[in-house]
């Protein structure tokens, strides 16, 4: 279903509804992409609250843009389901404005919290009423007053960041009683852990809360994309989070295709679905291996790791690269599936699904393993809703959100699959979701590979033109939103990536309150998130 078709099926006119609810205070316009609701700053928090509390919308992302005729454009993106239009609440401000009302207050829930903190750090905008602005993406040794996302800042500029004599990170802790301490974890690990820093605050055996600091891996991807051509930025889209390279590359390409009005041929769409599901399979199997490893279940870890490597080899056989780099381009894909590979893939996917099923069966009978996962790292449905969590973590506590259903892309509208749901929201529920999604991915692959359309795999060369688009893709760890604006000369004006790891790490602290210290690695593994994907 195309976007305009979604809008057409809307029974009541959402724009009309908005205007009558906010008489004279907003102008609303429905187009193929979304319902654009333009408002003034004082009304913003109330409108966002109305959307999330009364209309059942979920906050997706905040896109801050510095417009070329000086001024700000802030777009707050909300989504709901396949039958309702997306909503962009738009705020156009004078260039001199430095403060915007925050929408992450109590009434709205904290979903936009990190987005506002990031915008404060990178654009120098302040958000009135925000509970905790300050050091976030840029750590404390970053020079005061230098805001890298502003157009006036040159991305090639080498900053003279003094290396602080003491690298210890020392945020305010809640306890000062004797015997209490904060246990640091990271940013360098004893194994292949990703750079990130956690402080576990404890007064004895149990950890009371976890303070997290990310963005050790901030590579300024959004900034260095600006002013560059589409084909160069595609390299960044794929490589900022290599374990979900295809999903993010695809999201970027879809945004470009929307702007340039490119139709991807059916075989190209089908192959995109194949690659995306192979990537999901690999991600989920790797996450399961991580969970087994965190509980020291050696044989199970090895079994999962073998399946993982087999999937990586499979990717390399069908798409040249072990992580699908270079497989997706605006207009389609670069590698076709020859008949021999199609057959091979069909058998291989079956075999892998079977091995996963066996692994799941054995894990279900390992009571000591289940004991470590059950009732550990719980995320409640309310918390998931308030934080706008996405992907398997949200689906483990009752939220059905899945971009493949909400806004079908590639060939997902043509396949029959379900979105698995669990209710408990603990480590075990997440494990079950990963296994259930593996089954569904295998089913999707089967359907697509059985009836692979013939024809071209990519549209002829595209002609870049100015415009804006938002693409939503269900990456392996959840919804990814890529916002692209192209300049008149076809170069990137603004690229905003909202990744599922960014969204879900925000909710990680909910799962890490009042738990036993030795459970920390298990909770971490059961989230299956990537810091590279979060930090960009």
């Amino acid at each position, binding site marked *: 279903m195309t976007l305009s078709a979604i809008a057409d099926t809307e029974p009541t006119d959402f724009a009309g509804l908005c205007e009558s609810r906010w008489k004279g205070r907003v102008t609303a316009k429905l187009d193929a992409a979304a319902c654009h609701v333009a408002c003034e700053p004082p009304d913003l928090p109330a409108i966002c609250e109305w959307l999330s509390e009364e209309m059942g919308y979920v906050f997706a992302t905040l896109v801050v843009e510095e417009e070329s005729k000086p001024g700000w454009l802030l777009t707050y993106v909300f989504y709901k389901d396949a039958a309702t239009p997306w909503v962009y609440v738009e705020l156009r401000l004078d260039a001199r404005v430095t403060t915007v009302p925050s929408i992450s207050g109590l009434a709205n829930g904290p979903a936009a919290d990190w987005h506002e903190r990031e915008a404060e750090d990178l654009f120098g905008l302040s958000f009135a009423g925000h509970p905790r602005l300050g050091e976030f993406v840029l750590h404390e040794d970053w020079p005061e007053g230098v805001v890298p996302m502003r157009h006036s800042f040159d991305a090639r500029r080498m900053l003279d960041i003094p290396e602080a004599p003491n690298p210890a990170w020392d945020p305010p802790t809640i306890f000062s009683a004797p015997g209490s301490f904060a246990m640091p974890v990271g940013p360098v690990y*004893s194994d292949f852990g*990703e750079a990130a820093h956690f402080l576990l605050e404890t007064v004895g055996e149990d950890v009371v809360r976890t303070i997290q600091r990310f963005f*050790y891996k901030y590579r300024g991807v959004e900034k260095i994309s600006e002013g560059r051509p589409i084909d160069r930025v595609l390299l960044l889209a794929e*490589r*900022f989070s290599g374990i979900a390279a295809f999903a993010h590359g695809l999201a970027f390409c879809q945004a470009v295709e929307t702007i340039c009005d490119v139709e991807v041929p059916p075989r190209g769409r089908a192959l995109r679905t194949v690659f995306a599901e192979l990537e999901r399979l690999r991600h989920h199997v790797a996450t399961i291996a991580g969970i087994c490893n965190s509980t020291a279940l050696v044989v199970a870890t090895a079994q999962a790791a*073998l399946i*993982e490597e087999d999937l990586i080899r499979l990717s390399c056989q069908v798409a040249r690269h072990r992580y699908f780099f270079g497989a997706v381009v605006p207009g389609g894909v670069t590698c076709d599936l020859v008949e021999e590979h199609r057959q091979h893939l069909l058998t291989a996917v079956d075999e892998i699904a079977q091995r996963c099923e066996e692994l799941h069966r054995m894990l279900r009978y390992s009571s000591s393993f289940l004991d470590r996962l059950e009732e550990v790292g719980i995320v409640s449905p309310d918390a998931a809703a308030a934080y706008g969590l996405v992907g398997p973590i949200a689906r483990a506590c009752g939220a059905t959100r899945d971009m493949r259903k909400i806004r079908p892309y590639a060939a997902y509208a043509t396949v029959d699959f379900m979105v698995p749901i669990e209710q408990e929201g603990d480590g075990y529920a997440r494990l079950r979701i990963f296994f259930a999604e593996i089954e569904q991915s295998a089913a999707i692959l089967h359907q697509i590979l059985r009836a692979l359309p013939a024809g071209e795999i990519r549209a002829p060369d595209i002609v870049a033109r100015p415009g804006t688009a938002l693409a939503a893709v269900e990456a392996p760890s959840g919804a990814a939103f890529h916002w692209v604006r192209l300049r008149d000369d076809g170069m990137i004006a603004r690229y905003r990536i909202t990744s599922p790891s960014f969204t879900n790490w925000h909710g990680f602290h909910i799962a890490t309150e009042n738990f036993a210290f030795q459970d920390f690695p298990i909770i971490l593994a059961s989230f299956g998130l990537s810091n590279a994907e979060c930090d960009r």
Partner: protein
Amino acid sequence: MANWVLKGLRTRIKTSAYRSAAEAVSGLSPGQPRGVALPAHDAAALVERCPTRAIDSCEGGVAIDQRRCVDCFRCHADVEEPAVPWGDGYEWAAYADDVAAMRRKLGHAFGRSLHIRFLDAGACGACMSEARQLINPYYNMHNLGFFMTPTPRNADVLMVAGPVSDAMRLPLRITYEAMPTPKRVVAIGACAASGGVFGPSFAAGGGVAEIIPVDVVVPGCPPPPLAILHGLMVVVGRKPPSELISRPSNGEMSPE
């Protein structure tokens, strides 16, 4: 209770045959582009097409700087013409520079086993996933005498992935300094070797060598597990190193 012991025993020996013979299973490596003799206008077209300036024209053709190649396949025959030949294999690790090669020659400090500390300096996840595969039963680096160590004080080798993001500069230097001598640094991936697609910029550097001395570079984006294993083998002197620049004449070095 699930019988994991039985399951473990039933699984056939999976470990890669790296030590004895070259691996021939497909999917182990994406391969890498090679330098080739070409007419000047084709060479110019290729230089133009490579997004990371990994391709440079040289006497009679093009040479590839493997440190810069990010596996984009845009110089690959399947995608466009003219193209460069695509080599398979994975023994890509090379000495970072002449100084590193000298260090290596001036006496060999390690036994057959190595303790490794891994540091993520802003890698994208794929490099780390490949490094993590080394402890997977297929690659089983423990069998080769390579172990991860929980503390830098026991580490012989610092393995680094990523372009070195600003915030990881200091942890990188501290970890390096905490390691006893002799020590070796292995930079894995195009990011660690040259900054890859990210650096140098305001947020990330142009590779590990800007911060600490690097001994062995493993090119690739990401380098497959066997290439990383080759890098470790080079450190202990059990395998000869490869070259960082692939030139037209069958990879033989010609004077600059």
